[in-house]
């Protein structure tokens, strides 16, 4: 993912003149949005495909929910780790990062709602 970066000496809402770059925070924010979205995507996939539903049974008593949540969480943490490694020492365009994270978060909320998830 390419996101505009800037020196921390530039002062604006995106790049405030502070000692700590915003990259680490941006990585956590975007990863959380991706995590919420992935939760909904895996839930829909497991609901729509018998093969995926079966593959998502990591622990039989909990059923496909065990795989859906485990996959989403592992990918969320992996995304967070990758973004953190790339952005921790720089400042990024937080307006765009926040917008992307909020859209993904709202999509995650909406797509987990069964009447909407069943449209797919």
């Amino acid at each position: 993912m390419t996101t505009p970066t800037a020196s921390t000496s530039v002062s604006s809402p995106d790049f405030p003149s502070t000692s700590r770059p915003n990259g680490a925070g941006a990585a956590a924010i975007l990863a959380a949005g991706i995590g919420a979205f992935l939760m909904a995507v895996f839930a829909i996939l497991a609901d729509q495909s018998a093969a995926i539903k079966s593959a998502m049974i990591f622990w039989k008593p909990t059923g496909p929910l065990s795989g859906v949540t485990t996959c989403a969480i592992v990918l969320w943490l992996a995304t967070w780790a990758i973004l953190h490694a790339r952005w921790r020492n720089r400042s990024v365009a937080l307006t765009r990062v926040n917008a992307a994270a909020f859209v993904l978060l709202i999509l995650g909320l909406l797509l987990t709602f069964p009447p909407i998830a069943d449209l797919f």
Partner: protein
Amino acid sequence: MEMTARSFWTLVHGMGFGALYLLACSGALVELYRRYCTHNQALPSERDEKFLRIYLVAMAALAWLAVLTGAYIIYPWYRAVPPPGTASLAAFPQRLLMASPTTSGWHSIGMEWKEHVAWIAPISITMAAAVALQYGRNLKNHPQLRTAVLVFVWISLFAAGVAGFFGAMINKNAPVEGGPVIHIVQGESK
């Protein structure tokens, strides 16, 4: 006065972790607004900052405990399949709800939404706690990071609220019961 082991765990999950998380969410929102959305330009003290960090980490722990106990302790009891020929579905809440058109929606919409949307709460609050831990008092200088933290805490409150509402209503219509009986206190006999 007694309760079953399954009822006890449902109480721990819903009231112990879930309801406490909802209460903590409102406290976190008030604290974040008080600290960052007012015209107060002063930096929070080290002690205040430490409190917020501990508070958000405790909230993250509560959220994870709520979803993990729900998914791995309560949910298997909820979705248990009755053996063929079972006359009473009282010990099989999901099947009991689905047996009647007047209650099936609590499963097909309520539980189906709750079991997934609830996980957005720990993801969101873990992010908020991580940002607070990493930035501390420096968060005062990052308005957009603060906005994101506030939005995610609001969404986590909503997600936990949905899960809590449906959890309470589902347990009201088809309680998760069974297991050993726990005697709490001996009542007076008339």
